[in-house]
């Protein structure tokens, strides 16, 4: 139910696209993203699920500018509000995907669009936001399913680069950024060749003997440790030189590592096995790193440890098969074990084209033992807390950024659909490459 003004604006863009003679030329960012209008939007008669507070049946939520102004059972409607009737609908905060390559990839097999993997093992100075394409066709496809915010980063090597936390709307990468430098991404070395998705081993590794692979693992682990040691030394030395009034030649990579070894920016460790997690814990002990584990399908083995040490885990993708020697339901059941032990969990898809399936990852976890409310927190507030933006993101509360979805039901239920979507208070048209093609060919005259 778009506003009149919005529809006019949409037509304008469509017209321009038609003149340009291509359906793909449409900007992924639509005119809805004009400078925030200050008039209010009011959603009433809906079941409001704030996540951080009790459900409000028959509630009202007011958005003004880019923020949530008010919500509750009895909210006075502002005189200037555009009203959305939420009868039979549900209001949730937008969901946050804890791991994607959104904006860094377009078509998997076409190298020209791929900025997901840099050459070399150590690229801490590479900032994902530099290469995020705000006009990727994948971005609207993702957000129309209620995923409004995502971690995006390169992958591979040992230190893959810096992940950005982005809202899935904006004319420029800077506009999309919630946190330009949300976390450093480390692909923790693994033995490799240990079966399907055995943690980055790849098939090349399988032809080598176990002892060769162990040697390689040791070498890479030492290499990673010594890199952190260098970074620590660089950071310390820089401080001392500065105190003495001197200047030291800057090293881009080491500069990028400094806030990491000072524990100011978290490090996402992509891991699979319990062995890898133990390695990460040892690294964290030595260098005082703020650790976030990601993937971590064997984290259940260390659930109590992770709870005690308050190490959060971004689980997923659950749409992966467990290792060959794992119980059949391990990827599905792992999140529930972690949450029950008191570990803070969030979800990732580790995808771009199908980041939209984030809530269905959570559904699989619920089917295999994760509490449904805990799953909803994992999709929203927990992710916001992990990346230090819970004051602005992750739940419906006055003063928070208005990333809001209005749905026909539980977002984890595949049968539910999003009816209205707001990112930073702006109504987002629920169309994308897919709905456009759908409408186009639905209108095809019957073939003879």
């Amino acid at each position, binding site marked *: 139910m778009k506003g009149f003004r919005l529809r006019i604006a949409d037509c304008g863009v469509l017209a321009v696209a038609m003149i340009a003679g291509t359906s793909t030329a449409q900007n992924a960012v639509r005119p809805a993203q004009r400078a925030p209008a200050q008039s209010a939007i009011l959603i009433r008669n809906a079941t409001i699920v704030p996540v951080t507070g009790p459900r409000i049946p028959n509630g009202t939520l007011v958005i003004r500018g880019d923020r949530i102004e008010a919500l509750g059972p009895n909210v006075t409607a502002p005189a200037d509000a555009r009203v959305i009737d939420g009868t039979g609908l549900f209001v949730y905060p937008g969901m946050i995907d804890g791991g994607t390559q959104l904006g860094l990839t377009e078509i998997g097999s076409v190298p020209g669009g791929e900025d997901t993997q840099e050459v070399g093992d150590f690229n801490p100075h590479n900032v994902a936001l530099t290469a995020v394409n705000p006009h990727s066709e994948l971005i609207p496809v993702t957000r129309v399913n209620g995923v409004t915010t995502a971690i995006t980063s390169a992958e591979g090597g040992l230190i893959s680069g810096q992940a950005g936390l982005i809202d899935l709307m904006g004319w420029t990468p800077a506009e999309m950024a919630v946190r330009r430098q949300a976390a450093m991404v480390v692909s923790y070395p693994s033995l490799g060749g240990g079966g399907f998705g055995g943690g980055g081993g790849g098939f090349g590794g399988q032809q080598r003997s176990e002892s060769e692979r162990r040697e390689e693992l040791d070498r890479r682990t030492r290499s990673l440790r010594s890199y952190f040691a260098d970074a620590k030394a660089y950071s310390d030395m820089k401080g001392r030189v500065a105190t003495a009034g001197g200047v030291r030649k800057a090293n881009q990579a080491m500069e990028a590592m400094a806030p990491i070894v000072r524990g100011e920016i978290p490090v996402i460790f992509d891991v699979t096995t319990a062995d890898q997690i133990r390695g990460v814990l040892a690294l964290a002990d030595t260098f005082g790193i703020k650790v976030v584990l990601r993937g971590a399908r064997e984290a259940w*083995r260390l659930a109590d440890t992770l709870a005690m040490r308050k190490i959060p885990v971004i689980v997923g993708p659950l749409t992966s098969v467990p290792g060959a020697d*794992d119980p059949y339901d391990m990827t599905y059941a792992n999140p529930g074990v972690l949450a029950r032990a008191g570990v803070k969990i969030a979800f990732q898809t580790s995808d771009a084209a199908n980041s939209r399936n984030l809530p269905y990852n959570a559904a699989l976890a619920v089917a295999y033992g994760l509490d449904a409310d805990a799953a909803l927190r994992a999709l929203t507030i927990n992710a916001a807390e992990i990346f230090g933006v819970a004051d602005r993101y992750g739940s419906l509360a006055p003063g928070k950024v208005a990333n809001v979805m209005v749905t026909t039901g539980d977002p984890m239920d595949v049968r539910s659909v999003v009816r209205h979507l707001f990112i930073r208070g702006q109504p987002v048209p629920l169309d994308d490459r897919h709905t456009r*093609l759908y409408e186009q060919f639905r209108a095809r005259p019957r073939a003879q």
Partner: protein
Amino acid sequence: MTTQGHGRGAKGQGERRAVQMLRLLTLVTASIASIVSVAGGQQQRVATRDTARVLSYPIPPAGRLVAITNATIMTASNGTIPKGTIVIRDGKIAAVGANVAIPAGAQVIDGNGKFVIPGIVDAHSHSAAEAINEGTQSITAQVRMEDVLRQDALGLYRELAGGVTTLNILHGSANTIGGQNATVKVRWGLPADSLLFQGAPPGIKFALGENVRQTNRTILPGQERRYPRTRMGVEELLRDAFTRAQEYRREWQEYERGRKTVKRGQAAAVPPKRDLQLDALVEVLEGKRLVHCHSYRADEILMMLQVAKDFGFRVASFQHVLEGYKVADEIAAAGSGASTFADNWAYKLEAFDAIPHNAALMAERGVRVSINSDSDERARRLYQEAAKAMHYGGVSEEEALRMITLHPAWQLGVDKRVGSIEVGKDADLAIFNGHPFAPASRVEMTLIDGRVFFDRATAPTLEYLMELIRQKQGPRQVTEVVP
């Protein structure tokens, strides 16, 4: 879930599960060792004698007389029965309905609070196959999937745990004509021969587009590109192959005619040379072998339809068929089925116009659509994939269910046997703890021919593994505490 009537005590179940877990652990250790890499990155598993031995564990006996009671039964053909009973006799559905008496002596499965659906049929699988592509030539109609099936493939067990009971095991898409399929029932753990779906019509895998052209393949120095490199070349190969098949058939027909009319004292004609490749294609021409054609773009789908029309055969199913929604009328008019992904897209150029509304739009235009996995992972949760046809394009609940049961069964030519819960059909069933499309639902039990092949109550789950560790090593070791 537990079953009553066979008197298996709790202890017996626990032991059985422990045996299963140990067996699973041993088995998979063996299979890790046997995974080797081959050129082109395709995985291949090599059988070892060890795995065969480990597998000799008892499969539950065939349910001669079984009753599933008080369950919500989603038949896929005749709506949903809110509180019904299914009676299974000798592996077949003997009765289904709201007022069905439980026969004396039946093994009773209490379906209270549970949902029963037909066993899921996956029309595109590579599970259990030790080899996928004979990629040296582009026409390899002579090679057969049934020669390389492994009954102990882990994927099979995990698919059972996702309610899947029938698979169309296909070659890969390296070749224009890849080879002969194997339609199987997921009788995991029984000897490999038991996998084959007896009575299922034979099929063959065709493929079009990027994979056949080897578009995304790195050609090593000194290596020559394989023909074809264009979609035109793919068409030419098909026409050439079927022209050869027509001529081969004519030679045989002439020979047979001559043999019948040979007079006493005359020398018999020499039979034509047997050609295993063309034998399979002649079966296609005669409508005895179903064509399952991997395809993406609308143009190549139309090309395939034209080739099929010119040579007088029907394409049983277009596989993937990601742009099928663009030519749905043409597919429907040809009487072909369409077996697609729920929402997979953008992984290559020919998948960039893929839309998740594909299934719904094709169905709206009269195509019989199935949702397939093409993956051991997606196959575990095809029920979730089917629900996406409701999410995108709004198909009905029953139509979404048919997309993973009755429609794929029809595409494989086995819809008289499986795909819906009807009297006389095979008792292939999946029992969920809730509505199969609801987020908190999972498969509790899977039956094939009335026999329980998966039961979560006795399955090696993570929870059970944790309990084993707790008992053997103490509670601290379960979720180990590292200070």
